[in-house]
């Protein structure tokens, strides 16, 4: 990772982010200063799990066929978390629908990605003030933790060419319940803009976003969020 310092990433490099979708989604789902979550844990887990699958889709490693996650290619993956998910997909006997993968990955996705962000210098682990609570992660630099919001804003600007990764980030953020939070920083009609922008994504990513939203809504409706 370029621009890393002992205590985190240095200014300009940090604002560019890690280049990984799930990392940006994790940062979007947590307060840029305190690290407090904007989402219920299960919704955050499903959203970040969607982010991990989207990373593999964007790299051409996996695809969706009739709603099922399938191996699409064997691209070299630098990141350990992505390699771990890829190993799971490739090693699984039989294929599973995207909803099952989201449920499965959501159990550990948020912690895995937080650990990855800690390794990259974006998060630091601090002890909770309450002794019975586990350690929590807080952003090292509030500006770099807030930068994903700017990337979403840029992706929704019709006058700029939008990167598919940032559009997918906006779609997944809305799917797991962050649209009201994002609306604070985006122009009026942000929700509609996100829907329009994600409509231009490749079909597999659109489908993954829809499955993520369905999983979050289903958890909400079944009293499990």
């Amino acid at each position, binding site marked *: 990772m370029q621009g890393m310092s002992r205590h985190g990433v240095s200014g300009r490099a940090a604002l560019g982010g890690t280049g990984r979708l799930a990392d940006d989604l994790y940062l979007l789902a947590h307060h840029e200063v305190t690290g407090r979550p904007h989402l219920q844990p299960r919704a955050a887990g499903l959203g970040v799990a969607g982010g991990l699958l989207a990373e593999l889709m964007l790299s051409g490693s996996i695809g969706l066929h009739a709603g099922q996650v399938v191996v699409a290619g064997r691209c070299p993956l630098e990141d350990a978390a992505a390699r771990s998910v890829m190993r799971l997909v490739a090693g699984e006997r039989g294929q599973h629908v995207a909803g099952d993968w989201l449920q499965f990955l959501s159990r550990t996705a948020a912690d895995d990605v937080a650990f990855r962000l800690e390794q990259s210098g974006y998060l630091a682990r601090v002890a909770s003030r309450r002794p019975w609570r586990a350690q929590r992660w807080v952003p090292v630099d509030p500006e770099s933790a807030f930068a994903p919001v700017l990337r979403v804003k840029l992706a929704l600007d019709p006058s700029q060419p939008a990167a598919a990764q940032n559009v997918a980030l906006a779609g997944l953020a809305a799917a797991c319940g962050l649209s009201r939070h994002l609306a604070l920083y985006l122009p009026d009609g942000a929700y509609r803009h996100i829907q329009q922008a994600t409509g231009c994504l490749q079909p597999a990513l659109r489908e993954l976003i829809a499955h993520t939203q369905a999983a979050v809504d289903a958890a909400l409706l079944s*009293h499990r969020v």
Partner: protein
Amino acid sequence: MSRTSAAQRRPSSMSRALARDRLGVPAVLFFVLAGVAPLTVAAGVIPSAYATTGLAGIPAAFIVIAVVLAFFATGYVAMTRHITNSGAFYAFIARGLGRTMGVAAALVALLSYSFLQVGLYGAFGPNAAAEAAAHFGVHAAWWAFALGAWAVITILGLLRVDITGKVLGVLLCAEISVIIAETVTGLLHPAGGQLSFATLSPAALTSAGFGTFGVLAVVAVLGFVGFEQAPVLAEEARNTRRTIPIATYLALGMIAVVYAAVSWAMAAHAGGTRVVAAAQQQGPGLLFGLGGSGVLSQAAQWLFLTSLFAAALAFHNCVWRYIFALGRENVLPAALGRTGGNNIPQAASLTQSATALAVIVLYAVAGWQPMTQLFFWLGTTGGFGVLILLALTAIAIIMFFAHDSRGESAWRRLIAPTLAAALLTGIVILAATHYSTLLGVPPGSTAAWALPASYALIAITGLAWGLILRTRRPGTYAGIGLGAHAVTGQLTPASDRSR
């Protein structure tokens, strides 16, 4: 058998991991019973029903309706295995009778559960006022306590706080223990020293004419509301073929035994038909008095309040989930299907809070009687709405399996649902034609036709809206009944979207 095929038959690590997280029968059963709030029915509904209808056959009605609902549940849990969003009646009706009927059913369900929720404030207010006056010397009108409960439920709804499973579990166990203790004590001290079984006899159902069965059936169905909730957890269940059916049948059996026994104990303790006069004099005290006036009675009175509050919060959550799902499907305005911070569906929750506030204020200003005219009238009307939905769902189950048995036996897909549909439809007709008896008002009074007619009005509105969606917004129409899965509705096979 080769090593490869044996390995393929073993569940994968992912399947095993997901199965570990899923819910077994005890968890689903507990979820269902916690929403039933047994003391609300035992101390609130049953004495009010004796007092208002003037009928003594309530114990027999609980048993007969449990059998009818067992027929219903046979097809209901079978269809649960084949559809998404199986936690809502309108999803069954949309798949079995078409999406236009699904919209009508969704609005009927929304109105029914809203009646049930708002009605609970009518019991909480006066009973909290009585307890406050007796123990704390605080004297205030019933509506002040009802508004207090409303405010707390509104805040909890906005904070997305369900009373935790552990708290509900403790309350549920305490409520059932108190009901059993009161029942046993009441049966040990029957009026005249002779235990009568008359109110348990099927003859008691038609003691004042055949139509009274419809009235008693509505009261019984009101007691069972909540048993239909098990399929809400279908996607979370460890084994959909076994977990949901077992939990549903166990819940039905337990509710039937507890309610039939406690209502029988009240009749036996008061003495046959004298139970009606006793209920009119004592109200919820009909239950509390079974065990004398000691600690048991006092515990029952406090638990009655917590039970009413928990039920009001549970129905509040049930109503906003309906509003939210319909907003997600774009059947209601999409803004109702959005969430704010922490995944809180603020608009849906506030909509129900606004409805409840309007009703409490209306009753307070008009000076209408809360226990009878708010709790019992709106509660039984909510129960009547659920009865209509049960009948429509039974017909929908038959239609759903009519062209494709989907591997279900004739008993589950045809015979049991047909029996349920015939019996439930008959009960709906009987209840509608004897609604004045149900409410305890003279025939022809405004409430006796206006309350049941509200369902006809909203059903017609739903049918019209469904037809408009069909022609003007086919994308929305295709997602009706899919709930959370409406967003992936376009991804389902075309064969599943034929209606």
